[in-house]
């Protein structure tokens, strides 16, 4: 009898740690979904598809940034807070390169495709160089320091990048040229902007390509090996420093591409854009399961949609509460995220 009493709390505690938490999480999610469906039904279908496209396009951009967070976390368990600012840097660099390549707002057409591609490649390369330099200067010397130390240098690097962009272009909102076609596709009653479709295609192609690259290429294998066990990987002849640098390189390439895509989509950038965008992308990475690459992609898309639906079907003042509520709920009820933390199994 006494033994049974003594055992019960232990059983309850175990239950509370796993099933109960999942149950509560599922209930909260279900409540949100039911509430959303109820609101969606009050509006017409055409509006729903427009919002869905906007949500996916926004979400695809978040996914591009979230990949960088998750890759870096996966390999050195560091939240690279400067990543959001590398994303902003991508937008700033491309903005500065447009005049060099003769790209200006107005006559958007196919003649812009090649120069735009060139701007994109240079921007991604420059962002990658900056991010690798950040890793070399601020993170590599601290690789064996307590985990708080690189986190603090990460926040410092974020402030330095923001300050540099502030000095470069000032505090103003900068207009980013509107180069994508403004035509709209009308499918029945549903009207969807070609611009939205281009943005979401671009982002999704990049996300899928890099996910495949990491899963199939030799470098990708080295990255995953380093993430699983750094010492063992080194014993197998993998150059740890080069692999980690490559991770930062690829993450920044995606962030740079994200910066350009964001600029082309939103048409306005500012020096402090990376802070909040980075936080939302970080939420997406945690939501999908930090360290998990497909998880970051799915998390990004879902957070983008949550944001678009919250903004348009509910009061927009609630959006940030909802998004960061998801961050907290994920950490409390399912710390491994939707798809689980696949990489760092130690």
């Amino acid at each position, binding site marked *: 009898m006494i033994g049974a009493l003594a055992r019960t709390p232990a059983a309850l505690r175990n239950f509370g740690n796993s099933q109960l938490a999942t149950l509560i999480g599922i209930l909260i999610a279900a409540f949100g979904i039911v509430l959303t469906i109820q609101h969606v039904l009050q*509006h*017409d279908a*055409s*509006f729903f598809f*427009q*919002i869905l496209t*906007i949500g996916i396009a*926004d979400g695809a951009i978040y996914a591009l940034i979230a990949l960088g967070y998750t890759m870096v976390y996966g390999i050195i368990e560091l939240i690279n807070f400067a990543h959001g600012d590398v994303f902003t840097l991508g937008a700033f660099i491309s903005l500065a390169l447009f005049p060099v390549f003769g790209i200006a*707002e*107005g006559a958007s057409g196919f003649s812009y495709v090649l120069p735009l591609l060139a701007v994109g490649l240079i921007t991604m390369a420059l962002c990658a160089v900056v991010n690798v330099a950040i890793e070399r200067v601020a993170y590599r010397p601290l690789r064996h320091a307590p985990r708080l130390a690189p986190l603090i240098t990460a926040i410092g690097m974020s402030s330095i990048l923001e300050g540099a962009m*502030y000095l470069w272009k*000032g*505090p*103003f*909102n*900068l*207009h980013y*040229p*509107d180069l994508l076609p*403004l*035509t*709209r596709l009308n499918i029945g009653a549903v009207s969807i*902007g070609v*611009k*939205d479709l281009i943005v979401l295609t671009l982002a999704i192609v990049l996300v899928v390509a890099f996910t495949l690259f990491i899963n199939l290429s030799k470098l990708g294998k080295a990255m995953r090996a380093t993430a699983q066990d750094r010492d063992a990987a080194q014993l197998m002849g993998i150059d740890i420093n080069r692999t980690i640098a490559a991770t930062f390189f690829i993450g920044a390439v995606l962030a740079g591409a994200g910066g350009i895509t964001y600029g082309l*989509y*939103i*048409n*306005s950038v*500012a020096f*402090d*854009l990376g802070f*909040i965008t980075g936080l939302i992308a970080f939420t997406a990475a945690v939501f999908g399961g930090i360290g998990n690459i497909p998880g970051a992609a799915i998390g990004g898309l879902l957070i983008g949609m949550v944001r*678009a639906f919250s*903004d*348009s079907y509910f*009061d*927009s*003042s609630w*959006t*940030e509460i909802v998004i960061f509520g998801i961050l907290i709920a994920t950490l409390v009820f399912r710390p491994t995220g939707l798809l689980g933390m696949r990489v760092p199994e130690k």
Partner: protein
Amino acid sequence: MVRARGLAVLISATFVAFACGGTTGGSGSKGEIDIASSLPVSGADASSGLPTQQGAQFAVTRAATVRGFTLKFVPYDDAVNGVHDAQKGVQNVQAMLSNSKVLGMVGPFNSGVAKAEIPVANQAPLALISPSNTNECLTQSLDYCQAANGFTPSSLRPSGKNNYFRVAAPDTFQGPAMADFAIKAGPPPAGLGITKVAVWDDEETFGQGVAKNFAKEFTAKGGTVVDTKSYDPKAKKDFKDFLASAKSKGAQGIYVGGTSATGGCIARGQMAGVFSPDIFYLGPDGIGDAQCLKDSGSMATSNMFATQGVADATQNPDAKAIVDAYSAAYPGSSNLGAYTFAGYDCAALIIDAIGRAIDANGGNMPTRQQVIDALAKTTNYKGLTGVITFDPNGDPTHPTLQLQQVKSNSWVFVAQFQQGA
């Protein structure tokens, strides 16, 4: 460039002050009186704050002395990281209070800063006169003030006496003036003749105030507000969902309760492709600047209208000599803001009040309270932006509003209307 020139004038003004000070031993100055300003003059807000500061500075430099006292202009910047900041404004006021020569302050520029500065200045007390504050709850005790803004005129004035004045028309005028214009049959400048408008604001005291007053008047006149949203400008720069919603609900125009510094015209830029370029975009004085036109991109068309809470001094023939002299001292369009001559009038009103206070005090240096009392008694003062009389709340009794429109990528005067008492 702009700032360098302002500095040059400031230095020359200081030289004048020193020159006068030097003659104290003879028959000259009875002492120095400082007129301070606290305006956002760096960063995103500088495009409207700096020309205003220069207007005030020009008035002080022009007057040079009052009743034998030497005047000195002491400018403060209330922007932090390029955006106006209430805490910085309070620090500025505290710095002024510690300087007994400061008898009045021109500013603040933003209503959100005013609500923090007024209580601090009120306890001293120091006269504040704002060229551009338009939030009605700063001066008027309306039933929704506490709920909507978290303050009332009396909660901002712990001493129970008023020390705050302004020359701009409160939001109770600015929002409704645009609503009347929007609904009246067109073409401009008579009106726009539209009945369905979507409204968004930037979650700031000012933005929400004008947006609410616009919506109220527009509905009262028979129009429909089809959609309303509030956005935190720091977190949200994507207005596509709001625009999609506005379009699906048949909006013929968008009214923005916001400023360029809070991204008021980014939404206009994103309207490309969603709406045709002839869709109307309406807003308060906060969007009536060059930054707005940059953010609007290809959508900076002539279907953008903004109200300004002050009259256009260049439309006033009596003001021409001073306006021309200012333009000679500060050439170029970037030195000419919507509130430049309101800034001039604010400084001139303080100087006028100080003069009367000195007279009442037997030619001696007046106290700050005596300056406030003299300012409150201002009657039919012929300023550049209108004839100014203050009501007991510190508001102008007959404010003049102007309407501006975008033409070939700049804001131009369309019409102005004096409001009834």
